[in-house]
């Protein structure tokens, strides 16, 4: 069955290869810029990953005219503004973002401010509000989770309203995404697991989304397949470059899928838990994915059941509800195994969420932009019941 309408747009050039970032000559030759602002964070710098990329840029004859290295784990509006101001001050023509989703999203929105000016909240929150072209952006992920290197979305924290603001526009898609699994090999087991579960959540929520299309289905299914085959290997042995590569590619595939099909209430709950109690996004998604899928089951069991084959879930018959439940059980089993490896918490109570905070998370979930794309109407009291189970 085909949807009445779908659109797929993928302007980002994606290149993959272990060690690719040590020589970026061929890749950067096609980006119309020479003077770059490097955007990154303290961990990437400490691990020497930024230096590796800077060396690769030098081989391409590119000049890094400034470095913005203060991006926090959940970037904020003020951080984006400071980044854009530095880019303007040092005459940068383009951005190279080296890091996880927060770093790449910061560069995306700084590129908006540098090219178009204005105020992030007043002028660009919403849908269809950012008209390009922006300054070129090269995205080099050092985690395998957000897929931000290929998405049209940026998420930035607004400290005033304690919410994560989602900005969405095709103009936010980077010009170039460089996938180098060497850069992710130093990720510790916990981050490896939580970022992979973030990517898995992107893929599964895209799969059951009312906005799904045959193209996003294909991307999501391959992403799920790769994650299931690679995540435990990468958690056990960080230097397993094949597994690292699989997760990195899966993260991008899932990013392309959800950037078009969007995500639903699992992300809504995770955004709320992150905004209110600082729960890391990947961890929140890992904990909440089975509960969100159960919430949506009345509307999605037929589509979800089709994942049973991809997930090699233990199901005995063609009936869709048991098959869909087997998919959820398979996801629970995966998070359980990752928990046993010491890589994931399983309960909201273990990540700083107080019991009396659950109603606030439920209320914020309803107000999250993802509620619009959820297959089932997002109702606070029903979401609260799932949060209580996840507590």
């Amino acid at each position: 069955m085909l949807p009445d309408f779908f659109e797929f747009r993928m302007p980002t050039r994606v290149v993959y290869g272990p060690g690719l970032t040590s020589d970026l000559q061929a890749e950067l030759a096609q980006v119309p810029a020479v003077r770059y602002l490097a955007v990154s964070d303290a961990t990437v710098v400490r691990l020497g990953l930024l230096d590796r990329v800077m060396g690769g840029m030098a081989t391409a004859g590119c000049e890094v005219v400034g470095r913005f290295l203060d991006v926090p784990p959940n970037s904020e509006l003020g951080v984006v503004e400071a980044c854009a101001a530095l880019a303007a001050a040092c005459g940068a023509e383009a951005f190279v973002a080296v890091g996880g989703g927060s770093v790449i999203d910061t560069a995306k929105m700084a590129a908006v401010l540098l090219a178009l000016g204005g105020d992030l909240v007043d002028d660009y929150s919403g849908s269809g509000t950012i008209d390009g072209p922006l300054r070129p952006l090269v995205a080099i992920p050092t985690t395998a989770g957000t897929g931000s290197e290929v998405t049209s979305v940026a998420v930035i924290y607004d400290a005033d309203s304690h919410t994560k603001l989602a900005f969405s526009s095709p103009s936010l898609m980077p010009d170039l995404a460089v996938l180098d699994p060497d850069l992710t090999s130093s990720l510790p087991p916990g981050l490896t697991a939580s970022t992979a579960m973030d990517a898995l959540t992107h893929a599964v929520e895209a799969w059951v989304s009312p906005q799904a299309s045959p193209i996003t289905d294909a991307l999501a299914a391959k992403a799920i397949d790769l994650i299931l085959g690679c995540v435990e290997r990468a958690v056990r042995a960080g230097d397993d470059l094949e597994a690292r590569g699989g997760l990195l590619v899966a993260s991008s595939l899932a990013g392309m899928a959800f950037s078009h099909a969007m995500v639903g209430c699992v992300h809504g709950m995770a955004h709320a838990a992150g905004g209110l109690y600082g729960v890391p996004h990947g961890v929140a998604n890992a904990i909440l994915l089975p509960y969100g899928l159960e919430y949506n089951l009345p509307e999605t069991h037929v589509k979800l059941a089709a994942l049973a084959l991809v997930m090699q879930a233990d199901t005995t018959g063609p009936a869709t509800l048991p098959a869909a439940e087997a998919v959820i059980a398979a996801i629970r089993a995966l998070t359980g195994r990752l928990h046993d490896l010491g890589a994931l918490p399983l309960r909201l109570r273990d990540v700083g969420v107080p019991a009396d905070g659950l109603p606030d998370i439920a209320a914020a979930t309803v107000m999250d932009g993802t509620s619009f794309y959820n297959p089932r109407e997002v109702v606070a009291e029903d979401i609260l019941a799932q949060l209580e189970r996840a507590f």
Partner: protein
Amino acid sequence: MGLFKSSEEFEEMLSGFFRLAGSRPEIARPLLDSRLIIRFTYSDPDVVIVVDCSGDSLDVRPGDTTTKATVNMTMKAEIAHRFWFGKVNLMQALTRRQMTAKGPVPKILQLLPAIKPLYAIYPEYLRENGYADYIVS
């Protein structure tokens, strides 16, 4: 040349409809609870209407280009017209950029269930107020 004869006619037609919506308590109540100030900017013909839900009752202000709105919705007049017949999929319209929404979009989306009864009221309103030619079958 668009569907409508003039800016004046479209402005009068839609402002009247918004005022009618404000007179129905079951529709006005959730709108007023939202406290939103929404500016609709239409093209072909060019019309601006502010629907102010921040007070005790719905205030519909055609031509208000100065009030700072919480949400700015932009679309062609014809898309707006079809929307009130329930014939526009908002998700698709936003994706295809037939509509743009600046501001806290989720707050607008929350209002969709509340305004759903208006889809049936709109053709009645057109019929009873001399706009029967614009009824879409």
